[in-house]
């Protein structure tokens, strides 16, 4: 029987410094370990950059082999193309039992730094062993690896079995919108830009839920003609940014008349798309839910200083002390109390 990689477990324990994180495919489907099982499955793995870097890049993974030389110890390694996010697997002695099976924990050196950004990458490992006389290729494995900046925050959790574990389906889009960003502020800004440019059109009625966030529906809608309002945009920016390790929060302010603004999906050069609205509320993404926090608003672009020139409010102060005309609030509204709600929220995803 030829030598094969039988299984690979990326999520070896609950320590994010050395292990992949708990995750699931989507709301409905879990991901089981080992993530790679020969001929059965190859599930994605998720790592958080900051705890790995802080611990000195000591990622480990468990691998089992079958069909090896019975009772022998041979060095095994995995070669990867330059730039592979998890790096190559250094040659490590592996001892096979009498049936030719072996299990070992490999230590990786992914070489991440604080400058490593949000990444989704397909990793290809070419496995080699040295029976004496030089290394020989015996197997190739393929894996989808996500790297986010820090352990995902609420509504996401690391509680085993929860349907609020990070979803691979959401990571796919989060990594498209914020690919390569290296700070959570930059990732949230990229997310706001990505959501604003996602093809959605403005609808004043909430489409994806106010108690729970129907992230499943939103992910299915991307790439089609669809509509969203401010709550939907705030949900998307907050939820997907927090998936990458940010700690943002959604929050409302109430009763206002806006300046002429360009709703999501509007065309800057079309005068009719610049509208003044009487809103009962507006909801955005906040770094912290207080009046001097910076905010992100993917639902509306503001005149800068006049249409069609415009700016997406991203990492922009809601208000400052003393107030500045460059603040978000005076640029957004012309009248009304714009009273902050009692509390912000991070809606559970469904």
């Amino acid at each position, binding site marked *: 029987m030829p030598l094969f990689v039988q299984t690979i477990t990326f999520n070896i324990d609950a320590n994010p410094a050395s292990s992949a994180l708990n995750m699931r495919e989507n709301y409905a489907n879990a991901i089981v370990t080992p993530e790679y099982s020969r001929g059965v499955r190859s599930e994605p793995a998720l790592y958080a950059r900051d705890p790995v870097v802080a611990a000195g890049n000591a990622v480990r993974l468990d691998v089992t082999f079958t069909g090896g030389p019975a009772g022998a110890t041979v060095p095994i390694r995995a070669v990867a193309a330059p730039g592979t996010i998890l790096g190559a697997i250094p040659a490590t002695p592996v001892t096979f039992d009498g049936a030719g099976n072996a299990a070992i924990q490999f230590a990786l050196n992914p070489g991440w730094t604080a400058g490593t950004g949000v990444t989704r990458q397909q990793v290809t490992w070419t496995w080699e062993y040295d029976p004496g006389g030089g290394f020989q290729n015996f197997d190739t494995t393929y894996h989808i690896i996500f790297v986010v900046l820090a352990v995902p925050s609420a509504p996401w959790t690391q509680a085993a079995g929860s349907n609020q574990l990070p979803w691979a389906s959401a990571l796919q889009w989060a990594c498209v919108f914020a690919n390569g960003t290296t700070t959570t502020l930059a990732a949230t800004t990229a997310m706001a830009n990505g959501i604003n440019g996602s093809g959605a059109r403005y*609808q004043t009625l909430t489409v994806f839920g106010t108690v729970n966030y129907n992230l499943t529906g939103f992910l299915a809608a991307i790439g089609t003609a669809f509509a969203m309002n401010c709550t939907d945009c705030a949900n998307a920016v907050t939820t997907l940014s927090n998936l990458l390790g940010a700690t943002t929060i959604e929050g409302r302010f109430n*009763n206002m008349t806006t300046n002429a603004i360009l709703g999501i999906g509007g065309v800057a050069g079309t005068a009719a798309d610049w509208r003044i609205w009487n*809103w009962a509320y507006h909801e955005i993404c906040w770094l912290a839910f207080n009046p001097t926090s910076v905010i992100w608003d993917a639902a509306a672009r503001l005149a800068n200083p006049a249409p069609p020139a415009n700016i997406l409010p991203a990492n922009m102060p809601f208000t400052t002390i003393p107030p500045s005309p460059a603040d978000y609030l005076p640029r957004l509204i012309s009248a009304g109390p714009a009273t902050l709600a009692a509390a912000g929220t991070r809606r559970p995803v469904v």
Partner: protein
Amino acid sequence: MNRNESMPIIESALAERPRNGSLLLLSFDAWDVPLLIGWNQVRREGGSLLDEIPSTRVWYRNNDDEQQQILVCTYACDSRLDAGDALASVLDSDQLARLERGPKDIGEVSFQHPPGVAPAILFTRANICVSVASAGGIDADVTSAAYELDAGIGSYPQKSKPGSLSLDIVPRTRSTYEVLVTPQSPPRNDFYQFWCGSGELSYAQNMVQLKFGSGERAEGPVYVFQRTSEPREIPLVASALIPSPAVGG
């Protein structure tokens, strides 16, 4: 639209009971309603998006223009008053400070977006709250869809398939009756319609209740329908529904 502005309008509209009797739907799913000629159902989602009220969401795409989509959300509440409360919650999730009243012949109370805003109509019929919104790349007419949905909710089932329902009415108080149905839960993709010519049907503590107001007199039978089964009209004699001083408190 703030709840404190919408709720007085809703309560006023629902204060008057429907002239054609009381209707209650259990396990209602939007996709059970045949509707929208020229529209293709592209996605449907279940779940609870509004205060734990069972809801269904169905996306329709126009067969002739993929840019046109309609999103239909239904919230299956326990009573028509609860449906009014759900409507206020849905309106609360609309950024517009004010919505117009909808067409008088849609639902028991309805609201709609003013011209120039992506169209939406929101209404209640019996214990069901419905929003119909243009949710595509260009505006879609939602009025005809709202009419079709409203008619679909109130229509009696047409499918013919043997079923096994039994119905019993148990007096609990002078003005409240419990309507016992077996089986208690309809099969998946099925629902029950209850109709009574007088009184107010609602759902509480896993029981269907029929209540009469002060001075009201029970008239006519109660019917229960199971959509995918042969409609079984189980008439109850009127005398059995007339509140009696001898019954309960």
